[in-house]
């Protein structure tokens, strides 16, 4: 799994920094490093961009896995190095931003990236979203291809009337998710499963009602 990110426009970043002049920069050595959005190179580039805009970058570092809680000493060390900062800018997905927020409680911790989706690398350099984490997975009935994610209308009984030659009506560069599901079910000899009407979905386990949490048994 990868958290797919893209860099925000510099103007937006500068705007979000507001009155802060002394900035600490954090990258992430995992997904953003692989994607070229938050590795060492991008952190240094951000440094020079900000300096060009008159900011003082008092510290920069790439946290190996920004979304994971640092051990106590490492965390203390980070806090010490960022002590003089008036704001922190994090080149990671939102999980990394959240984690750095928890270390630096007294200054704004700001995202330098947009967190786009969780996805996989389909071919070299092309990342594609595969799951929206809806909470009630239907892949068993759709040949392992997600209708929520791969269909532009998240249809459960597709394809819609706009599916033409394997392409989605929304954009010919998007493969029609339901054509993919159809092809896969056909290959599996299970088109009979697609004849069943998929009942209305339970979205209560999805994006509603505040953050979803789960506690592992002791």
């Amino acid at each position: 799994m990868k958290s797919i990110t893209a860099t925000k426009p510099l103007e937006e970043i500068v705007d979000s920094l507001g009155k802060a002049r002394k900035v600490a920069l954090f990258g992430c050595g995992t997904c953003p490093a692989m994607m070229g959005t938050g590795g060492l190179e991008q952190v240094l580039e951000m440094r020079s961009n900000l300096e060009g805009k008159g900011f003082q970058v008092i510290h920069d570092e790439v946290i190996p896995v920004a979304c994971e809680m640092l051990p106590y000493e490492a965390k203390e060390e980070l806090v010490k190095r960022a002590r003089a900062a008036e704001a922190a800018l994090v080149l990671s997905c939102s999980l990394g931003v959240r984690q750095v927020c928890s270390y630096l409680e007294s200054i704004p911790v700001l995202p330098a990236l947009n967190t786009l989706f969780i996805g996989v690398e389909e071919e070299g350099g092309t990342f594609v979203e595969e799951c929206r984490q809806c909470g009630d997975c239907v892949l068993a009935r759709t040949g392992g291809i997600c209708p929520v994610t791969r269909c532009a209308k998240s249809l459960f009984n597709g394809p819609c009337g706009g599916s033409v030659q394997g392409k989605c009506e929304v954009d010919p560069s998007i493969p029609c998710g339901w054509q993919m599901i159809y092809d896969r079910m056909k290959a599996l000899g299970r088109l009979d499963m697609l004849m069943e009407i998929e009942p209305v979905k339970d979205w209560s386990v999805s994006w509603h009602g505040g953050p979803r949490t789960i506690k592992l048994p002791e």
Partner: protein
Amino acid sequence: MKSGSNLEKVLSAGHFAVTAEIGPPKGGSGRIVESKGEQIGHAADAFNVTDNQTAVVRLCSLASCAILARMGLDPVMQMLCRDANRIRLQSDICGAVALGIRNILCLSGDHIKFGNHPTAKSVFDIDSTQLIQTVKLMRDEHKFLCGEEVSGEIPLFIGAVENPYSDPFEWRVHRLAKKVKAGADFIQTQAIYDIPKFARWMEEVCDAGLHEQTHILAGIIPVKSVGMARYMRDYVSGVEIPAEFVRRLEDAKDVKEEGIKMIVEIIEQVKEIPGVHGIHVQAVGWEEIVPEIMERAGLLPRPII
């Protein structure tokens, strides 16, 4: 009778039915809906009002249909899954019944990307097949999706759409079967230009016995100009316009007249295809042409039941 709507009566009596589309205005003028109703009210059995078609905001289908119903016309309320969740949808279904609407057409809806609010969030809580099922549940079992009871009757004639030209072609009839199983009493198809392909699809529909379980109305879109034909050919996903059709328009001295002539020819051919129970004319922004087309296709006067 499931709904007692004029459309249901005409179809049940075995007549070749005609439905026509009325496009609501981009504003609050009910008078515009009324005047379109006055203009073409005699030329069809029922009148679809689109629901924010192509994701462009317009006067809502529910209000427009209520205006038509007040005039004594038989409206078909189009309802999309794009803009509302199951609570709003079921509530509007009750509202439609309360206002005298007796036909409903269930659709997923064009994607928001094509409209005038491309930054909006789409809903798609349920899909069109599930919406058909929902209306049927409310009508036949007097139940909401949650299982609670619906008070009173929900007499609605349930419609759905299908596109014989989209892919995978070999799956389209099965998809139609799903919608019929879900409860579709009638089907309005995507615009028909390629007659042989449509006839092939209808053959499959009849082989599967679906023409006996639902009423298929063939979609008809009159073409006003060469530009419109080219646009539909090139940009409207799922519409197939044969090259010959465009060529005839290009070569015509009087393009409008040629367009009408070709549409009348299409209607005449479609009428002969076994299993087709009517047509659905969508003369978007050109509603006033419907009576002339119907007259020339020999479909006037409409039956009074």
